[in-house]
């Protein structure tokens, strides 16, 4: 029976889609059967981040409106046969789907999968409500900066109010050298402010940009990049493993540089 995991944030551009794609890949690499649903109707992106954009025939709204069967809208990832995508409609808006549609859809998928990941759109309106309606667990993504943390706090409150809490936190795009010189909020700062459980810290990593260009999420390369390593670790934590948080803020000295030759810095 699947766990429905909704990735949300309030603010746009903080890394929800990147996180959804990479967690889906990391979980599937771990042998889990995963389906991800793009909840961003009208602004779909999960398809391109996963590199599956050329294979879309039907979408979420087609399923909801009965133009196709659920199975027909599920795209199987050829790289990872246990990974599926249900894309969003591009030419419709969020009101084409209701929260109860999402609950029904997920109930149909649950018996077949171990994980159902939902990529939430930005905002706190219909698309957000749709995305959290079927959730068993909500992951809130934030960046270490003022507006993103503030919006995350709002979202965490709304998730609690909808009785979908407690939300869990992913800090994305942490830049260790900015943190070191006191120009970026630390993970501890953010945790103290938001007072929710942390599931992972993903460093700022140019490999995310490069891999997104290619439509090959960093997590596909296992632990070769720091961001990929971080997503792998989060996936393991979601599966109940105790994976220690690696320190991204250690001082950049000779020894840690030497040490880093053998070890990735992601958390």
């Amino acid at each position, binding site marked *: 029976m699947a766990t429905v995991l909704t990735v949300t944030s309030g603010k746009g551009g903080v890394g929800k889609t990147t996180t959804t794609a990479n967690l889906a890949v990391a979980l599937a690499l771990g042998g889990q059967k995963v389906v991800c649903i793009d909840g961003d109707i009208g602004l779909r992106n999960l398809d391109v981040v996963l590199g599956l954009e050329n294979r879309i025939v039907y979408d979420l709204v087609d399923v909801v409106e009965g133009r196709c069967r659920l199975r027909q809208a599920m795209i199987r990832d050829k790289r990872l046969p246990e990974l599926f995508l249900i894309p969003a409609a591009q030419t419709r808006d969020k009101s084409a789907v209701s929260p109860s549609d999402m609950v029904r859809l997920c109930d149909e998928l649950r018996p077949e999968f171990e994980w159902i990941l939902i990529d939430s759109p930005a905002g706190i309106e219909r698309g957000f409500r749709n995305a959290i309606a079927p959730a068993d667990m909500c992951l809130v993504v934030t960046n270490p*900066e*003022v507006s993103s*943390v*503030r919006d995350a*706090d*709002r979202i*965490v*409150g709304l998730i*609690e109010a909808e009785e979908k809490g407690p939300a869990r936190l992913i800090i994305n795009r942490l830049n260790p050298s900015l*943190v*070191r*010189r*006191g*120009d*970026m*909020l*630390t993970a501890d*700062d953010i945790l103290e*402010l*938001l*007072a*929710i459980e942390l599931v992972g810290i993903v460093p700022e990593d140019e490999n995310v940009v490069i891999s997104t260009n290619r439509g090959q999420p960093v997590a596909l390369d296992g632990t070769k990049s720091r961001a990929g390593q971080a997503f792998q670790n989060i996936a393991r934590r979601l599966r109940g493993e105790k994976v220690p948080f690696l320190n991204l803020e250690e001082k950049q000295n000779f020894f840690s540089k030497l040490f880093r030759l053998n070890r990735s810095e992601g958390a």
Partner: protein
Amino acid sequence: MAGWLDRLLGQKETSASKARERLKLVLINDRTDLTPEALERLKNEIVTVISHYVDIDPNNIRIDMTQEGREQRLVADIPIRSSGHRR
């Protein structure tokens, strides 16, 4: 390096610490739906109401908004002057 030293000596305020302090206040406002100005008025009214009943020392009053987990809490410490019987 200089920034690091300053921080160690607690001299220069970093942009991160500024962000933290600003966020603390913003989150209080957002969570309680109280502007800083409304919070100030609230505190003053509490003091006024209490002083109708007991003799308090206005200089030793502390009313703070604190955070416990995700809960905001208004904590008041209002010492009452022991002045025998009043009223």
